[in-house]
């Protein structure tokens, strides 16, 4: 079966600096893949080339067998949806209008169709953002904004969902809810690729983890294979331990001022968020 993404020796330069150094990896149909790594590892750059935002790269990035840069943007947008960390609006769009923008690849003419409205309602319902649909986007909290942006991506009805740190501004409840939603989407044949800093959420929900370090793949595999203390210590340059989490998944604890804390930042003796 043709992989969804097939990267061969991908190199990306930002100015003088090479940010990705010859990345080669395949990502198959369905499943939740988490891309983790320290700041500056090249995670967001990788997402921008996968999403077709950055077209200046060397090597080859095939999406469903065709080079990403060769796809017509409208066609690509019907297959993939990208969620940035945040968007900043200058103008008073409502939350609902932001979500409706996700239907642009399907729009013909000036007005949305009943199908578009149905897709928007479903997406806002899935992300629990219907209660503030009519409110101005700029007036929403960080977490509410993130749910609106996720809804906008789901309204695109994509087969591939690309997320750049989707839970940065979310509270614990919505972090868990978001990853549970992503996991269920992945089980319904959607390919979900998420950049995250939260190793424990990644280990709990992802089917596969890719660790990036200095623009190279440091590890790639199932969470138990990747969540190795020695590897993560080297990559993140933090003294940490891996223990068994509440659901039997590996859980990261790190050392700070003599107290072990898990990687979400709460004291180690407390119940982890899952």
């Amino acid at each position, binding site marked *: 079966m043709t992989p969804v993404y097939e990267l061969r020796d991908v190199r990306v330069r930002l100015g003088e600096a090479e940010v990705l150094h010859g990345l080669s990896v395949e990502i198959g149909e369905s499943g939740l893949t988490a891309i983790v790594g320290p700041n500056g590892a090249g995670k967001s750059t990788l997402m921008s080339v996968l999403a077709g*935002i950055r077209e200046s790269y060397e090597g080859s990035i095939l999406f469903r067998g065709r080079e990403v840069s060769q796809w017509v943007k409208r066609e690509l*947008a019907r297959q993939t949806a990208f969620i940035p960390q945040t968007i900043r609006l200058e*103008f*008073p*769009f*409502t939350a609902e209008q932001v979500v*409706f923008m996700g239907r642009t690849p399907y729009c013909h003419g000036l*007005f949305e169709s009943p199908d578009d409205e149905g897709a928007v309602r479903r997406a806002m319902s899935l992300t629990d953002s219907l209660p503030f649909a009519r409110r101005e986007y700029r007036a929403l909290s960080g977490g509410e904004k993130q749910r609106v942006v996720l809804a906008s991506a789901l309204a695109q009805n994509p087969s591939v969902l690309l997320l750049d740190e989707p839970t940065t501004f979310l509270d614990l409840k919505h972090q868990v809810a978001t990853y549970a939603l992503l996991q269920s989407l992945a089980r319904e044949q959607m390919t979900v690729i998420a950049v995250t800093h939260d190793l424990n959420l990644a280990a709990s929900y992802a089917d596969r983890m890719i660790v990036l370090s200095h623009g190279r793949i440091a590890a790639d595999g199932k969470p138990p294979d990747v969540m190795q203390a020695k590897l993560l210590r080297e990559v993140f340059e933090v003294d940490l331990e891996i223990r068994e989490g509440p659901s039997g998944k590996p859980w990261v604890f790190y050392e700070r001022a003599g107290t072990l804390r898990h990687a979400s930042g709460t004291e180690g003796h407390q119940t982890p968020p899952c």
Partner: protein
Amino acid sequence: MLSPAKFWSAVSLSLLLFLVALAGMPLIGTSGAELSRAWAGLSPDKEILFQVRLPRVLLAALAGGALSMAGVVFQALLRDALAEPYTLGVQSGAALGAVIAICFGWRTVGAFPAVWLTGFAGAALAMFVVLSIASEGRRMSSFTLLLTGVTINSICMAAILFLHYTAGFTQSFAIVRWLMGGIDSMEYSTIGILAAGVLGGLGIAVVKSNELNLLAVGEDWAVTRGVHVPGLMLICYLLGSVLTASVTSLTGPIGFLGLIVPHALRLALGADHRLLIPTSFFVGGGFLMICDTVARTALAPSEIPVGVITAMLGGPFFIWLLRSRRGSLWV
């Protein structure tokens, strides 16, 4: 979701304002000309209404509509609420062209006033320079576009100041008068050409208005929702610039309109460009027709530069709108 009913009711209301102004403003003046006499072909009413006032009102309608629409387009393109038709150097290029014609005593080129042609040539040159600096291969950065436009503005304004400094008394007065902006009567053929360009621009902007919504959020946002962003940015830049250049070369700069009309409409209708584009054309046109009528009648037989009126009428109204929305994110 934008329903056809909401779209057509907003457009119809703004069109009604436009049509009322278009029908009513030619009838207002200090000479006492009557429509019935003009319709019967009696002089001087016929000449006053159909050769002096109506062409002037039509020019105001097109100029106001074009500048307001250009303001909406540039604000979306640059994602900057303070952007206006003159932000990207087109107006100062036109002004420099016109000032050169005045300084060198060029009066006509063929059948046209020289300031129109040099003004348009100056605007086109500024447009070309900004575009060639701001585009990098197939890509164009709105940030570089903004910085380049502001720089070209400064360079042109410095050249205008220098020419003004070296100009004689008569030329100096002509320069200042041109820079104040104003609506004058002109041939129907000239207005016809302007109308074709402006209405064509309105059509393009309406077709692209859905994509403008995405561009107003961000370039990455628009790309990942299927918009060909470099093409859209180029269209927006050329559209806004050509509209501004066409109007400015005929009227001189008329400030405030491209800022105040779009923002007043955003307060009333929200941020959806499918509503903003057509309504800003009609409301901007109607507003400038009213302002020009005030400009030519308030201190008759003297005339007030119409830019002064747009600021004096529009400014307080805009402040009232802002205060009435106190507590919202606009204040």
